[in-house]
C-alpha cells in the first residue's frame, strides 16, 4: 500500500484543502479523516518569538518519517496517510507540519494521527532554532514529549 503514503520534506508551504482532497477523493470506504497542522506560535516559554529556523538531516528525514508511518499502519487500520514537514526559515503563524490520516474508523484515524505526531516529535531528525526578543536560541526537547510517547507502548 506504499502509494497510499505520501511523505514530503520541503521549504515550500502547503495547502490543507489540497491535501485533504488527495486523502478524500475516490476513497469511499474510509469514513473518517483526521488532520493535524502545527504552526509557529508568537510566544514560547514566555518569550516573544519572531521566527523559526528548521534544520534537518536530509539523508535520514524521509526514511525516519516513513518508519513512523509504517509503525502507525501496523497498529491501526489506516487508509491513506500524508506527512509534510517544512524546513528552513519560517515566520510566526506559518505552517510547520501536516499529518493527515484516513480510516474506516474514527478512533483509528484520531489515534493514528496523534501517534504519528508524537513519534515525529521525538524520533524524526528536525531541530528548531527560534528567533526571539532575546536573540536566537535552539529549542530544547521537552521531557513531556518523551513521556507522552511511552503512553503508546
Amino acid at each position: 500500500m506504499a502509494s497510499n503514503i505520501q511523505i514530503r520534506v520541503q521549504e515550500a508551504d502547503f495547502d490543507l484543502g489540497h491535501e485533504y482532497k488527495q486523502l478524500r477523493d475516490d476513497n469511499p470506504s474510509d469514513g473518517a479523516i483526521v488532520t493535524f497542522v502545527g504552526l509557529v506560535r508568537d510566544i514560547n516559554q514566555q518569550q516573544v518569538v519572531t521566527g523559526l529556523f528548521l534544520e534537518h538531516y536530509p539523508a535520514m528525514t524521509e526514511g525516519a518519517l516513513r518508519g513512523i508511518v509504517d509503525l502507525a499502519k501496523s497498529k491501526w487500520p489506516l487508509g491513506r496517510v500524508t506527512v509534510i514537514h517544512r524546513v528552513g526559515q519560517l515566520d510566526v503563524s506559518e505552517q510547520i507540519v501536516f499529518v493527515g490520516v484516513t480510516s474506516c474508523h474514527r478512533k483509528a484515524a484520531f489515534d493514528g494521527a496523534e501517534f504519528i505526531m508524537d513519534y515525529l516529535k521525538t524520533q524524526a531528525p528536525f531541530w528548531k532554532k527560534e528567533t526571539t526578543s532575546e536573540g536566537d536560541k535552539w529549542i530544547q526537547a521537552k521531557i513531556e514529549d518523551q513521556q507522552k510517547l511511552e503512553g503508546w507502548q
Partner: protein
Amino acid sequence: MLNILFFGQLKERLQTHGMQQLLQEIYCVADLRKRLQLKGDIWQEQLALGKTLVAVNQKMASEEERLKDGDEIAFFPPVTGG
C-alpha cells in the same frame, strides 16, 4: 574511514558540520564517542552520553552498534521538530 556528522546546537558548539575518522581501535558507537571526546573540553562536554543521540547510516542507533568502514555516523541533540 568513518564519516561523522553533527547537527543542530551540537554543530554550532563544536563549530563543525562533521569530519572523517579512521576506524583504528573503534569497534562500536561508544568507542567513537569516547575518541571524539578526547578532542577537548567542549567535545568532552557536548558529546556526553545522554546529551546527544546517534544515528548510524541514517537509523537511530545504540552505543553498542558495531561500526564498519564507510559508515555514516551522526551525533545530534534530542530532536525538536513538529
